[in-house]
């Protein structure tokens, strides 16, 4: 509910080193260190342990204006008391599992369906141990039939269950596009509101380490036009767990995009129950000079570029938009009104991607506040090559981000 400041330290340090796993040793900042920036007169201090400084945060005031049942959580009280409870440290896939497990315990109609989610524990171990705990019917190992088991999830959702459908890789959900577009998005409307579809469709997508073209797809651009669904992308263990729980509790069909390379991120998250608002964006690093909008893995490239930019004297404001559909135009708008320059950094393809839609939305709503045209850095319109060097060049790298900001701020 209240905007949560993410640990800059924990988040910033991901580099595009060849190793697949990120553990705390590789983080350049330890989670507990605060990261401060001096620029002229203003000093911004962001604690990396999830403390929310409501005083500095205008969004905190706005949080009160949201409708009371927007997000039914104890987030407010937990935010202020989180400093007393240290929380526990875990990896992102464990955070997803924790969120899923808590929701399954809380509501018996929550079930999981997907390939290898049961006995195998999930191809990225997100559902490990759940089948032993909840049984084979609640954590259902399906045959390899995405279209049909997604449709089965939709039918189950219509008749009272709350399924969480896992695509082993997001790209496989292309086979389920029929069901996602025609049924998931539309049935609530075409039935005149008689049937709700509280389904969560999740899976890892994005460009990994030389996984090849078909396993490196970004489906958010394909799904974004489907009316009737919501799309969110998680990027840290904190918002992964929060978004997972919010998505399961939501009455709308939600597609939760995870990223293959982010599953081993480690962070300390609160012990108590919390959820993240599905429609809100996250302020990662406030700034003055330029607004950088990003999501999922590119957040880490941006934060790495931010270090360089700060050393060069720029003050970027980084926002993780989190909600890919619908966009949180309030957070984004406030930022645009402050900085007047926008850079969008995304992993989606150039054509028709999230960045393209976001550019259009910002131009439509905040054109008067812009001092320069919006720059959008996205992946090339290229099937992701296998070769490591080529793959690197299809995706946006921190150096490009630095160059773009320098260009924008001239």
């Amino acid at each position, binding site marked *: 509910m209240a905007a949560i400041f993410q640990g800059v330290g924990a988040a910033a340090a991901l580099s595009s080193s060849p190793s697949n796993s990120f553990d705390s040793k590789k983080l350049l900042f330890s989670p507990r260190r605060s990261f401060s920036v001096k620029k002229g007169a203003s000093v911004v201090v962001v604690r990396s342990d999830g403390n929310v400084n409501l005083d500095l945060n205008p969004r905190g005031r*706005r949080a009160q204006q*949201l*409708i009371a049942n*927007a997000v039914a959580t104890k987030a407010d009280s937990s935010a202020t008391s989180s400093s007393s409870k240290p929380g526990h440290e875990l990896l992102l896939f464990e955070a997803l599992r924790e969120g899923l497990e808590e929701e399954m315990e809380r509501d*018996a*109609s929550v*079930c999981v369906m997907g390939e290898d989610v049961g006995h195998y524990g999930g191809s990225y171990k997100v559902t490990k141990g759940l089948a032993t705990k909840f049984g084979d*019917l*609640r954590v259902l190992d*399906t*045959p390899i*039939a995405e*279209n*049909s*088991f997604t*449709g*089965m999830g*939709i*039918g*189950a*959702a*219509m*008749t*009272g*269950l709350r399924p969480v459908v896992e695509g082993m890789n997001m790209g496989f959900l292309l086979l389920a596009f*029929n*069901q996602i577009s*025609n*049924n998931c998005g539309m*049935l*609530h*409307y*075409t*039935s*005149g*509101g*008689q*049937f*709700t579809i*509280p389904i969560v469709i999740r899976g890892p997508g994005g460009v990994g380490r030389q996984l090849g073209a078909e396993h490196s797809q970004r489906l958010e651009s394909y799904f974004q036009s489907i*009316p*009737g669904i*919501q799309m969110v992308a998680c990027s840290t263990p904190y918002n992964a767990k929060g978004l997972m729980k919010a998505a399961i509790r*939501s*009455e*709308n069909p939600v597609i939760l995009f995870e990223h293959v390379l982010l599953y081993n991120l480690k962070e300390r998250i609160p012990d108590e129950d919390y959820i993240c608002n*599905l*429609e*809100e964006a996250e302020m990662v690093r406030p700034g003055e000079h330029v607004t950088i909008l990003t999501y999922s893995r590119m957040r880490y490239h941006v934060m790495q570029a931010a270090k360089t930019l700060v050393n060069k004297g720029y003050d970027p404001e980084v926002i993780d938009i989190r*909600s890919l*559909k*619908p*966009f*949180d*135009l*309030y*957070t984004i*708008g406030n930022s645009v009104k402050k900085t007047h320059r926008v850079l969008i950094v995304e992993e989606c393809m150039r054509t028709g991607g999230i960045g393209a839609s976001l550019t259009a939305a910002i131009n439509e*709503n*905040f054109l008067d506040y812009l001092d320069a045209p919006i720059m959008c850095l996205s992946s090339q319109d290229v099937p992701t090559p296998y070769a490591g060097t080529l793959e690197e060049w299809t995706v946006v790298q921190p150096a490009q981000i630095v160059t773009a900001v320098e260009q924008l701020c001239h």
Partner: protein
Amino acid sequence: MALSMCRYVWWLSLSFPLHQFLPTLPARRLFPRPFPRCFRPPFFFLSPPSSLLYLSQSIFHSLLHLPFSLLSSSPANTPHQKPKGSRKVERDRTMSSAFSAGKFTTQPFPLNTSSPRSHDKPFNIPSATSPFFGSSRKLRLNSSSKLNLHRRSGTVVAVSDVVKEKKSKFAPNLLITKEEGLVLYEDMVLGRAFEDMCAQMYYRGKMFGFVHLYNGQEAVSTGFIKHLKKEDSVVSTYRDHVHALSKGVPARAVMSELFGKTTGCCRGQGGSMHMFSSEHNLLGGFAFIGEGIPVATGAAFTSKYKREVLKEADCDHVTLAFFGDGTCNNGQFFECLNMAALWKLPIVFVVENNLWAIGMSHLRATSDPQIYKKGPAFGMPGIHVDGMDVLKVREVAKEAIGRARRGEGPTLVECETYRFRGHSLADPDELRDPAEKAHYAARDPITALKKYLIENSLASEAELKAIDKKIDEVVEDSVEFADESPLPSRSQLLENVFADPKGFGIGPDGQYRCEDPKFTEGTAHV
């Protein structure tokens, strides 16, 4: 021995008008080469003239109508059968033969002649009614019973099993009571009258778009859905008006939906191809073929989940999935057959095989046109039934639904049926042979049931006429109601996009967009 010779010469019988299906075809046309045993149309049928096509179709159907004994006598025909030794062919004396106009006079064999009949079957169907039970010999229950570990429930033999003892010692053995008969009649007449009225209204410009009418197929809808409880679910296709009516959705609601009025069952937002009713558990209404089958599988999954995980011990809801012959070549069909059989979901897959997918004949589209054979491939019984005969459909339905209710798993039922009109009201219907249409028109299910009721003194002509009149009034009232209902207002545009309208997001002013009054007015831009 004589019978075994039959395999070489049985086809000659086709030259004689043994059956009344081909009254108009000249005899010389009936000298085919001996057909392949599994009946595949010859190669050149890839683009046949329509008369040859009709020929192949009618022969295809006639094959299935032929006395079972002739077909099965050849060992190669039935590799899984236990076959040698003469089999007795018995005369069918039940009234059902009267019902079927005496065409079928021999009785199908009981399936497991070798294995002892399991006497602990919970149900016995006097199933001498359908000649197509001959085809259910392809159930191959010997193999499927290996998969089925629950011996106590008995294998599904009963469809074709002739319960000889049960055959009544007192004539006549009626299949339905008077009340049931009237219910069936009324439901079918409602379906027919409603669809005819739809056509009228369409040509008068009251409804638009694609409208697919169900004339001729009423026996399938009535035969199956009248066995269901209110909590059971039905999933249909775009040809769903009559499924909705049979399930209990009021004619008024369906007609208003077709007119696009706000009083329709889906508030005018669905239309002809998207009939939904949460009250009557009609889960749609799907425009793309095959799309509803996974949804039906999901509803069946929920039923099983409720019973086993949520411990609602009495939850035995069954789901019926209706779809056509064209869908049976679609991947979703096969994927769902697999999953339903794998998890023993309480679902019945009902194929309304009306031989045509718009203009594509089933025989031109399918490598093996006998759809019921695809059931055993996945470990479930596959049954073929005459879909123009509501009583036969009803018998098969009772068994299949009973199976599902007891947790024995899914069944694939292929109903041979026919649509009297074109695929939709926009279809000129030029490809189908008028002789074929005439042939099936003579087997109109409503006329047949009427005849049965009257011949068996279950109802009088006057009673049936009274029902006809009542239905006419119901349908006219529904049209009036739909005419007078209001069209949806602008405010309805954005109302049901999301169950939780916060899904529209947060606007530039910090408010949720759904709180914007333009949203409730429907003028906001999403």
